[in-house]
């Protein structure tokens, strides 16, 4: 009953005219961003973050959250109609979605993607609502050793789960930690790696870092290696899936919801990972795996549901523990902190309107997206006809404008350009930038909790962390995550096995 009462307050907050309009704007902007290749949700949220500084806390967060799940919905449209994913989580939808469109079944593919996104998103929000209060209550009992162990576990997951190579992922995460220590040390007040500049004393800003890595980096890569885009297929009038489509999609959607939510809760469990795993599972459990890749509706339903459920799932650790599980959520964390809110177990107690407002806005946003996506898909698709050669300079302009507008600082523009070059190099040589951003955010929290734990419990023995049950289990899990790829490699060598 308490949850329902709180949810009611959340709905009252979100349905206030100004907030309702912001949810609408957020999901529309998000859908457009998802539809347009070249500007993902991370860069877009980084870009719009400065515009929310003047807003109140709740409206700014529901606006940014709307952009995030709007982008997840919109990303499937280009995958299905042009064979180009609007964002990373929709890469897998290209495989069967585009084949369905080529066979004249674009309507069914778009419809199933929209309904799947709605179902995954909605079930995910229900789970967030039910789990978060209990997790937050449990997390209140965490001391510095437990928080450090949890953050270390998150660090290992981020490094190992994201990207193809564990060593590369961990290296990116280590680089993120290094960038995170630049600036004045919170505990001792000593300047570290500032090279005598005032600008770096406050540390490197998350927004220039994210906009550079994800916004400019992507644009530079596209300038250097311009891909030839396919022609945009026509949008059929009938977008409602047939009874057969529904029958074939029911279980993939259900499995996708559970799997996506579970992955979304894990640090490093990005929506793209959820959609990829869902596709692999659907192919494995299918009685006709040979249909996958030729236009199987399950290959659209499962991944699209999973990536939206993962999007919702990511809000659990963010709102209850203050731990972002992907780079978009890292920016939402920054948005909260800009408004003086410290995300963590106390969020539900101190700022319940933030938590329940976001939850209610997600319910409303999901319904809006379903209503918007089906009838208005033709309009969104028209955006794909704008040449990328025109869009690309405009995106650069918005990125630079956003970088300047945050602090009215030209140094932020230079910093964005610097990280843009780094982002381009990472993209060029297949290094995943997400672990860098996440470790950059988690690093300072890790350091503070490690120092507190060592000072307060002053044993000087690192094994002390293993003597406390929660931190011991979390560190053991972290070590398992770190060792698992090595053990798997050794196992394969010993038994001469292959993948699968």
């Amino acid at each position, binding site marked *: 009953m308490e949850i329902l009462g709180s949810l009611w307050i959340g709905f009252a907050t979100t349905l206030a005219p100004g907030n309702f309009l912001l949810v609408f704007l957020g999901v529309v902007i998000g859908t457009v961003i998802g539809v347009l290749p070249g500007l993902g949700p991370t860069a877009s949220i980084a870009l719009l973050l400065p515009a929310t500084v003047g807003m109140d806390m709740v409206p700014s967060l529901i606006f940014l959250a709307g952009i995030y799940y709007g982008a997840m919905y919109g990303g499937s449209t280009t995958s299905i109609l042009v064979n180009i994913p609007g964002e990373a989580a929709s890469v897998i939808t290209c495989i069967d979605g585009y084949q369905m469109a080529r066979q004249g079944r674009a309507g069914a593919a778009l419809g199933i993607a929209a309904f799947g996104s709605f179902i995954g998103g909605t079930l995910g929000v229900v789970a967030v609502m039910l789990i978060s209060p209990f997790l937050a209550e449990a997390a209140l009992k965490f001391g510095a050793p437990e928080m450090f162990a949890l953050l270390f576990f998150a660090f290992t997951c981020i490094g190992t789960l994201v990207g193809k190579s564990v060593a*590369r992922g961990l290296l990116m995460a280590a680089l993120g930690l290094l960038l995170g220590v630049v600036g004045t040390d919170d505990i001792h007040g000593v300047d570290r790696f500032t090279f005598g500049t005032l600008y770096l004393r406050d540390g490197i800003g998350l927004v220039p870092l994210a906009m550079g890595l994800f916004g400019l980096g992507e644009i530079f890569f596209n*300038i250097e290696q311009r891909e030839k885009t396919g022609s945009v297929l026509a949008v059929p009038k009938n977008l409602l899936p047939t009874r057969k489509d529904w029958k074939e999609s029911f279980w993939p959607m259900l499995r996708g919801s559970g799997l996506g939510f579970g992955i979304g809760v894990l640090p490093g469990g990005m929506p793209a990972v959820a959609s990829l795993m869902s596709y692999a599972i659907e192919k494995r459990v299918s009685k006709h795996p040979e249909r996958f890749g030729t236009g199987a509706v399950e290959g659209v339903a499962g991944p699209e549901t999973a990536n939206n459920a993962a999007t919702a799932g990511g809000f659990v650790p963010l709102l209850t523990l203050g731990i972002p599980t992907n780079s978009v959520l890292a920016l939402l964390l920054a948005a909260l902190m800009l408004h003086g809110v410290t995300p963590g177990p106390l969020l539900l107690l101190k700022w319940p309107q933030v938590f329940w407002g976001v939850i209610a806005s997600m319910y409303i946003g999901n319904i809006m997206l379903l209503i918007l996506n089906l009838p208005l898909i033709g309009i969104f698709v028209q955006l794909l006809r704008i040449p990328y050669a025109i869009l690309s300079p405009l995106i650069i*302009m918005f990125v*630079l404008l956003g970088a*300047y507008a945050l602090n009215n600082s030209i140094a932020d523009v230079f910093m964005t350009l610097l990280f843009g070059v780094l982002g*381009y190099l990472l993209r060029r040589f297949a290094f995943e930038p997400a672990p860098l951003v996440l470790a950059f955010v988690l690093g300072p929290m890790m350091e503070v909790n490690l120092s507190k734990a060592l000072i307060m419990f*002053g044993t*000087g023995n690192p094994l002390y962390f293993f003597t406390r049950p929660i931190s011991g289990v979390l560190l053991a899990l972290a070590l398992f995550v770190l060792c698992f790829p090595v053990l798997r490699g050794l196992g394969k060598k010993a038994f001469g096995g292959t993948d699968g």
Partner: protein
Amino acid sequence: MSRVDRWVGIAAFLGGVLLAVAGWRLDPGTSKLPGPGFFPLLIACTLGGLGAWLFLHPGSEEKSFPSGPSRWGALAIALVSIFGYAMVLIELGYLVSTFVLLSVQLRWVEKQRWSTSLWTAAIAAAVSLIVFRVLLKVPLPAGFFPLPKGW
């Protein structure tokens, strides 16, 4: 074997060594009372260790997109024009510098016609100025270009 992994491994290892020296100079303290260099030293060990691992166990060669020919010239123009934009933004003001940046990007990076480049640049610079400076009250630099009162 990935040559990229080997080079990145060497760079990370050397970076780790340099960071370890810097961390030591910052004072690492002890494990009972960590100093400001303690955490950087831990990162240095991680970085160096991972660098060594990547050098010794490089993955298979891969590029992000092994597609068409690279447009290095276009990329160089894009980078230089953005750097130049950041250098002159305050002096020239948002409107003029953004117009120039967009014109350069559209004409020489994206190979659009002069008329398309200039019109698109002018409209985009003016609209973004109105939206951000006038409506959202972001204090974008005015520079020497005379703006209407109240902008």
